[in-house]
């Protein structure tokens, strides 16, 4: 009773979805269908082949007649890798969403509603009702708290739609404020924080900006010129970054994934050591103070003493 029966139910669930999909498509290539179903072309081909031995029960214990089974155009599959269903014996309509599928989509919709122009369009409200009605049983309430849209987010959205650059004041921690002109490419929302990725005219490269550190945003009349450039992953580290050794409580590890080099993690039990890469060494003092006592900067010495001074200066306010 290992994972075997589970996998079979996954495959069965896919076959139930495959029939209405194939009917809707009429004719579809193996690769396109495999892509839609998140499986390899070989796995999809095998599912389609399985389908042709599935059908209505045999009458009085006899084997089924050919027209009691699903069938496909075999020549088309063998010669052109195209799937076309030629006989169906049921399952023609799309199954209802399971409670969990509905819950996953409903929660996603609540986050999507925080996007400028999406939440206030009425589309989300209609969808919430339709998804709840389309589920086979009541989904668990999975709520994503609404987030207020502010001027900066609206301006970024307007610039993305209009295809123009934005200019704004940016104040990174421990650095002087700068004025940036940026071709907006992508807005990331992660852990409730909003980040703008785009081509920075000042640095002449793709950069990521935390929207809470942005102010005075204006739309420019400069058309976006770099929207096609490759966008690095959010929090991607570059060679210019600082490297530090830290010791940390083991249960902090999931919170450090953005910086921690997994290959460098050593030690067992409650305390681990590892190497982090960060954009600016000065941000380590904030990280260490946030996890007061649970995260120690071991090296470089400059960062370690910066943490001590930071904490001491914080404490001095209370004496």
């Amino acid at each position, binding site marked *: 009773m290992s994972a075997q*029966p589970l996998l079979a139910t996954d495959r*069965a*669930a896919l076959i139930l979805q495959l029939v209405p999909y194939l009917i809707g498509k009429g004719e579809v290539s193996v690769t396109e269908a495999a892509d839609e179903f998140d499986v390899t072309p070989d796995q999809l081909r095998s599912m389609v082949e*399985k389908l042709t*031995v*599935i*059908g*209505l*029960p045999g009458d009085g214990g006899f084997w*089924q007649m050919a027209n009691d089974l699903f069938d496909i155009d075999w020549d088309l599959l063998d010669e052109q890798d195209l799937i076309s269903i030629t006989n169906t*014996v*049921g*399952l023609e*309509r*799309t*199954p*209802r969403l*399971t409670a*969990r*599928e509905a*819950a*996953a*989509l409903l*929660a*996603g*919709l609540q*986050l*999507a509603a925080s*996007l400028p122009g999406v939440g206030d369009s009425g589309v989300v409200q209609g*969808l919430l009702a*339709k998804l709840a009605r*389309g589920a086979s*049983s009541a989904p*668990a309430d*999975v*709520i*994503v*708290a609404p987030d207020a849209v502010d001027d900066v987010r609206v301006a970024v959205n307007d610039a*993305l739609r209009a295809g123009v650059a934005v200019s704004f004041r940016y*104040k990174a921690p*421990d650095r002087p404020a700068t004025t940036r002109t940026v071709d907006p*490419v*992508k*807005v*990331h*929302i992660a852990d*409730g924080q909003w980040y703008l990725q785009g081509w920075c005219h000042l640095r002449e490269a793709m950069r990521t900006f935390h929207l809470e550190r942005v102010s005075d945003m204006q739309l420019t009349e400069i058309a976006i010129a770099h929207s096609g450039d490759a966008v690095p992953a959010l929090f991607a580290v570059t060679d210019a970054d600082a490297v530090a050794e830290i010791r940390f409580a083991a249960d902090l590890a999931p919170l450090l994934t953005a910086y921690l080099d997994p290959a460098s993690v050593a030690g067992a039990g409650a305390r681990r050591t590892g190497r982090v890469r960060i954009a600016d060494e000065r941000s380590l003092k*904030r990280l*260490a*103070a*946030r996890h*007061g*006592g649970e995260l120690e900067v071991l090296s470089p010495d400059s960062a*370690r003493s910066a*943490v*001590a001074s930071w*904490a001491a*200066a914080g404490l*001095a306010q*209370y004496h």
Partner: protein
Amino acid sequence: MAIDANTPSSTRTAPEERLVNLVVALMATEPGLTKETILTSVSGYREQSAAGASKDALEKMFERDKENLRAMGVPIETIGDYADPDDLREARYRVPTSEYELPADIEFTPAELAVLNLAGGVWSESSMSAQARSGLRKIRALGLEVDAPIIGYSPRINLREPAFAPLQRGIEQARVVTFDYLKGGDEDAHRRRVRPLALVEFEARWHVFGFDIDQDAERTFLLSRIVSPVQVTRTGFDAALREGAGDKALAGLQELAARQHALLEVDPGTEAALRLSRRATPAPQGIHVSYVDAHIFADELASYGPEVRVVEPADLRAKVIARLERTLELHGGAR
């Protein structure tokens, strides 16, 4: 899989074939099929019956298949003996088409589908991501027109807490869950018995709202403070308790945030000023910022070091000082 091992390989059918054959058979019947008919006529069982598999083994297989299909959302109806509903010997089984199929009157506009495509992509690597994709696939199979994708956004919900999946199962099945919970500031974790009612992401943290049986009151727990695996027990509760629970939980958290606020002095132009002022209301001396969890807010305030000073409440102030003291202690001397 003892059943398969006892039957000759030529009669063995892949389990997914048997499952789908069963669905086709149960949907094709209006009055329902008896277990006897199913085991001797539906492909997957029929071959094993013919090969002499024991009736007991086949019935067990049928029971497991039914359970698996129901877990997949296939509504298998049992029509029992009306004179004696507990007697299932003559029971008939069917899948009512209307409950299996996505209702025909649910239609999605092109604009709705574009939003739904975006919503389906928010889950970072987790089982919820697979569920969302599967749900989307079903809706896409309706073959409807879709608006141009909403470009330029990559919204993500992170799910790092292993407690989420069992809690969700507890809610779906309306069953009591138990777990060890480390209350903020406590040294030791305590066992909780909870009727879970809703999961809520609030300020980027997952909470479970439910009824704590030992405390005899509604409680909201942070998933990150659950320190043991979550057990879904066999004890059920009235599923009607779930109604409106999500809204109630959210309202409770918002009310808490409205009630608790700190008076802070911030150094203008710093990171602390930038980040806190967005959530702040001006006060005669400094700013007021509301918070839900004093421990989590103290973590954030400590990270700002000398950029912020907590005036009140005293409890929050003490927590920030303690964090800074521990940080200084750890970094003050040699390694």
